[in-house]
């Protein structure tokens, strides 16, 4: 037996969990036909994961963008390059900050809600009851939530980026006097469609990962009040680490 708590034990535990979640993803995808058969279930979950996250995403995006505006002008003015503020902010947001920060906020807002909702259904035997009623809970409960989350995150990322760029534009152009024409023209000069696609690809991958972790932790929660709380915590921690690792891997692969 491997000692629990040892490094080897931890690694084996991680690998086991990775394997189990990949298997779970396969199961979810097999049952995802419900998204076509009953789109209303997915719409409901896009509402829960997307619409309800919108306020926090827009607020955060605005402030991240405004900070980028302040810091960008400060740093670029040392190089006499304030004109490329728009380009720098757009590249930073589109390629990195947008997808990553949105995914982290998503984990905190929608991921925890998903994990605790499904965990509570586990703890109160609702999932078990469905099984006995000959209704597959992966199909009826998990798959729509996974799809709703995976669809919502790229859309939220787009909103975050736009609000962020507008925030930087407001601070840069209106408050700190960067030239409006230069802001946009330099942005269009230096931003390639590839940069945008890179961001969309990243946020799609993060959406799959964050939603999968949330439904996996909820579905496999220990069926007690404590277990549900633990599942919620683990969702945030695991998602954050996985997002940042994935971000590095995707960036390294695309550059």
């Amino acid at each position, binding site marked *: 037996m491997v000692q629990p708590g040892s490094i080897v034990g931890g690694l084996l535990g991680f690998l086991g969990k990775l394997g189990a979640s990949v298997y779970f993803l396969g199961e979810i995808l097999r049952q995802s036909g419900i998204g076509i058969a009953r789109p209303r279930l997915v*719409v409901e979950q896009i509402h829960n994961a997307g619409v309800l996250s*919108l306020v926090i995403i827009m607020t955060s995006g605005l402030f991240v963008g405004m900070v980028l505006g302040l810091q960008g002008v400060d740093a670029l003015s040392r190089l006499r390059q304030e004109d490329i503020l728009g380009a720098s902010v757009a590249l930073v947001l589109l390629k990195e900050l947008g997808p990553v920060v949105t995914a982290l906020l998503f984990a905190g807002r929608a991921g925890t809600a998903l994990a605790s909702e499904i965990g509570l259904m586990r703890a109160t035997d609702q999932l078990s009851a469905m099984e006995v009623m000959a209704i597959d809970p992966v199909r009826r409960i998990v798959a729509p939530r996974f799809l709703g989350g995976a669809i919502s995150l790229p859309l939220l990322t*787009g909103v975050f*980026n*736009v609000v962020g*760029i507008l925030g930087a534009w407001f601070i840069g152009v209106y408050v700190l006097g960067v030239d409006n024409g230069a802001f*946009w023209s330099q942005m269009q000069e230096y931003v*390639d469609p590839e940069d945008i696609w890179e961001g*969309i690809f990243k946020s799609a991958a993060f959406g799959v990962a964050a939603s999968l972790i949330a439904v996996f932790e909820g579905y496999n929660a220990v069926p007690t009040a404590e277990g549900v709380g633990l599942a919620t915590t683990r969702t945030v921690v695991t998602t954050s680490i996985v997002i940042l690792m994935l971000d590095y891997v995707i960036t390294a692969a695309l550059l």
Partner: protein
Amino acid sequence: MAATSTRDLGTGLFVLLGFAALAFLLTQTTDLDEYRGDSGYRVVARFQDIAGLKVRAPVTMAGVNIGRVEKIEFDGDRLDALVTLRIENRYDRIPDDSDAAVLTAGLLGSKYIGIGPGGSDTYLADSSEIQLTQSAIVLEKLVSKFLFSQAENTGGGQADP
């Protein structure tokens, strides 16, 4: 059912907002037309040393952006750099004896191509070649040239132990 339809409406608006955001990003933050790559005509130029010139670097004439560097290859036979420039169609009256130089924006800035006008009556067209080129000025070469000339002026004094 009122609650359901409000929720559906909200969700529909959210999805619309998300796609509108992507559309905004694709149209406002990047220049799709310019990037599409079919517009404009191509001319080539050969340089001894391009020293850090990048694909997509601007091509300017009288300081105005008229096109981009599309491709940079090393010619294994002639041992120089073969650079393909794409120039926008509306600038179709550039004399074919114009010269091209690899220039630097600022002292240490990024490299770009500057075209200096010639006096010919015939113009550059697709796949013509700019004959007169001036390679990048490489700072290290400049510095060492300067130091050597100084050393010669002082009679090789720097060789003393």
